[in-house]
């Protein structure tokens, strides 16, 4: 009954920015594809295919599978406990359980390897029985410990959003409580859980720091070796293409599951399920189950790093690195929020261009940081090779080296990877401004800037801020793209932590690693509380 044309006042500015967002996100992948599919074969790649490529693929598969299974089990279990049971501490755990996302997997890996390796405290305490955290299994577990919140968040909201009717219907049809759960609640939440697990796989594919520290060479490592060792853009682009193909496949799985989530949502009237009241031993077990991942993923590794940091000299360049990290993370967060919000505004018109732009921008989410970096280099060198002849004929000089190693190129790569992460939160926030709300405000005499200030802004500010903070945290943690693209003498916290850890100087690596985690923790608290504010029953 209501047409779209009157609501959307053709927000051309928003549309233009949405198209820019799509270009920023898609350009690196396109550049990689163009280079990779260009002519010419290299000995390096042939050699690689015969030697290490199968290992890279196998490790990627192993790490991704272990990470997804681990995070799936932890996230589903905790999601159900928080959404469907009642026990002391549940409300606080509801958001605190999201916080491990602030800890980069490589930071957890530094600490756990240090604790468990021969001569470490766990090794000594267990008389050598505690296995050393390393290899594909170790890396997968590290990812599970810090990335399970992706599954937890989606599973929690899926369980909380389920109507009790299906469960009750199963009970009246003769199912036991456990059988009713496994035959109704769990299948109904399965798309959400699968979507969360796909996100975990994508993150683990994109990682470089963890797998390199724990010695589980995945495709990302192969890619960085090809670039930094062999220095061949063609080789790097071709490996990137393999990595992107896998990531896009997983991304496709994630999108498919998200679409299913909608069809699995409760139909008809929503009757929130009653929480199982846990008492005594049960309540204690639930409390312990919630505390365990927080201890293993945050408290123990961060505690170990504090202990290490206090006994080591301060890393040189730490202060500069803090500044650099904060600057690039802040700029990226603000730009991503602008891109995300504009795309969300443009999407309101439901037109072909904004929808296509948002889809394209969304692909960026699947692009691992190393690939984004190679893509930015490929793109800039492409532009350079096109412009160079013209420049020469005009000025007689060589075209100035483009931004191949500048902070701007770095931020471009960050945005192409993380801007997509800001689109859907902005969309969700903007969905709160319904057409009728806008209509009500306008019939009451408010329009233009006044309408934005009094109705739009108060409704979207928390959502947009949380999207920006999420990008801030991701950029702070980002390692591979930064390593490839950072300008000379421009180290971030992640880079110096990685370099010291790689040199077996964990004491000096501890301080920057801790700074990342603690700086990320503050915005993460806001994000976690925002994401849990609307969780049902917790108002």
């Amino acid at each position, binding site marked *: 009954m*209501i047409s779209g044309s009157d609501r959307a006042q053709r927000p051309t500015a928003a549309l233009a920015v949405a198209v820019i967002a799509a270009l920023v996100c898609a350009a690196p992948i396109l550049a990689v594809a163009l280079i990779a599919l260009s002519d010419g074969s290299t000995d390096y790649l042939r050699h690689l295919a015969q030697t290490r490529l199968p290992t890279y693929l196998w490790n990627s598969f192993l790490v991704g599978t272990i990470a997804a299974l681990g995070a799936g089990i932890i996230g589903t279990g905790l999601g159900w406990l928080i959404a469907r049971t009642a026990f002391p501490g549940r409300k606080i755990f509801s958001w605190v359980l999201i916080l491990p996302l602030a800890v980069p997997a490589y930071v957890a890996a530094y600490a756990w390897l240090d604790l468990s390796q021969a001569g470490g405290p766990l090794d000594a305490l267990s008389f050598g029985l505690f296995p050393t955290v390393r290899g594909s299994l170790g890396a997968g577990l590290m990812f599970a410990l810090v990335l399970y919140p992706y599954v937890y968040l989606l599973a929690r909201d899926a369980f909380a959003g389920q109507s009790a009717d299906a469960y009750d219907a199963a009970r009246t049809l003769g199912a036991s409580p456990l059988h009713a759960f496994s035959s109704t609640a769990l299948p109904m939440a399965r798309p959400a859980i699968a979507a969360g697990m796909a996100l975990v796989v994508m993150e683990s594919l994109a990682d470089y720091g963890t797998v390199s520290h724990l010695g589980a060479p995945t495709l990302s490592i192969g890619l960085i070796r090809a670039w930094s060792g062999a220095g061949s853009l063609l080789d790097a682009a071709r490996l990137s293409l393999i990595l992107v193909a896998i990531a896009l496949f997983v991304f496709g799985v994630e999108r498919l599951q998200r679409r299913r989530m909608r069809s699995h949502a409760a139909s008809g009237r929503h009757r929130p399920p009653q929480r199982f009241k846990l008492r005594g031993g049960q309540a204690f077990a639930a409390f312990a189950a919630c505390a365990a991942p927080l201890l293993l993923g945050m408290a123990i590794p961060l505690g170990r790093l504090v202990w290490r940091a206090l006994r080591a000299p301060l890393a040189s360049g730490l202060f500069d690195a803090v500044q650099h990290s904060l600057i690039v993370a802040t700029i990226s967060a603000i730009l991503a929020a602008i891109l995300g919000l504009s795309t969300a505004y443009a999407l309101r018109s439901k037109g072909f261009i904004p929808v296509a732009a948002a889809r394209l921008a969304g692909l960026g989410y699947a692009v691992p940081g190393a690939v984004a970096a190679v893509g930015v280099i490929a793109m800039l060198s492409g532009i350079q090779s096109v412009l160079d002849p013209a420049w020469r004929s005009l000025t007689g000089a060589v075209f100035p080296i483009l931004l191949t190693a500048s902070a701007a190129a770095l931020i471009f790569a960050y945005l192409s990877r993380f801007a997509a992460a800001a689109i859907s939160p902005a969309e969700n926030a903007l969905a709160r401004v319904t057409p009728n709300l806008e209509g009500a*405000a306008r019939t009451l005499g408010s329009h233009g800037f006044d309408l934005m200030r009094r109705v739009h802004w108060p409704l979207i500010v928390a959502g947009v801020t949380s999207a920006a903070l999420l990008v801030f945290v991701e950029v702070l943690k980002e390692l591979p793209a930064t390593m490839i693209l950072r300008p000379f003498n421009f180290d971030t916290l992640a880079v110096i932590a990685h370099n010291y850890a790689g040199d077996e100087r964990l004491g000096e690596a501890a301080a920057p690693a801790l700074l990342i985690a603690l700086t990320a923790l503050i915005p993460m608290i806001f994000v976690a509380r925002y994401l849990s504010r609307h969780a049902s029953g917790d108002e």
Partner: protein
Amino acid sequence: MVSDEVLSVRGALRRFEGGHRALCGVDLDIIPGQVTALLGPSGSGKSTLLRAIAGLEHLDDGTIRMGDTLWSGPGKHCPPEIRRVGLVFQDYALFPHMNALDNVAFGLKGADRKERALHQLKHAELAGKARNFPHELSGGEQQRVALARALAPEPSIILLDEPFSGLDRRLRGDVRRRTMTAIRKSGAAALLVTHDAEEALEAADQLALMQDGEIIQTGTPKDVWFNPVSADAARLVGDIDVAQGKVRSGKVESVFGDLPADQMEDGITVDILVRPEGVSVTQGEAFEVSGEDYAGAQVRLELKASDGSLWHAQTSATTGLQRGDRVGLGLDPDFVRIVEQG
């Protein structure tokens, strides 16, 4: 700023994507101090008309005027913030980030806006809930806040889009009476959009029937109910049985015998419209009771005529008639209309 200006809609036309016409040349006058109900099935275009009057929807053709001021017309669209109509939405559209008082004060200006808003809330008997946020209010309370918000700027016309449909059935009548009292007291012209015939008949001074983007009849509720212009119009306001017939020398033949059709041309096909409320059961054999539908003290009988046509009669539930019984039927002429077939 209650005025005596009439809001007039002339030839309003609105096309949607795909060529579907939501409004095809609508004429309507909304008179100050009166409640005009716009009744129609969902998809008939009534909400589109209301949104066009509010300025939330553009017209492709036709005009909307408030007195001498052109609101919508060829090449002219006065935006909603200038029109200042009061609008109550079906979902109330309360601002979720503002409490009841701030919601009501939203459209007010000046230093005393909060006081005036509170005054308005007092009228709605909601002063005690001024600090409550929308999600803390019941459905009925939300509806009253939405009405208070729409009335607060003293609009000369107030538009209500299915404002009672979200409410519990038992609450609805009471909320409706309060709402209508408040609107009449304000002196504003009111347009009530609804698909509920009972609601429209009870609340309205003027009734306009809408179907497929056209207004098919206007008049007082009583006039529209007793003198429908067509079978469609009759069906919109109540239950009706329809039979076809042909006019022969001022009479139409029917299962009830010949009915008078004085002013009608010979030979044309007509619809005979019979309201069950005007059908009474008599002694006879012509009809067979084929169904019964009890509603408390009343029963609605389904009756089959010898030609197989089905009719309904509303009688007392105490008659003891049963399926298979044979009866005669009497007609109250006030409840029968003969109209030319459209």
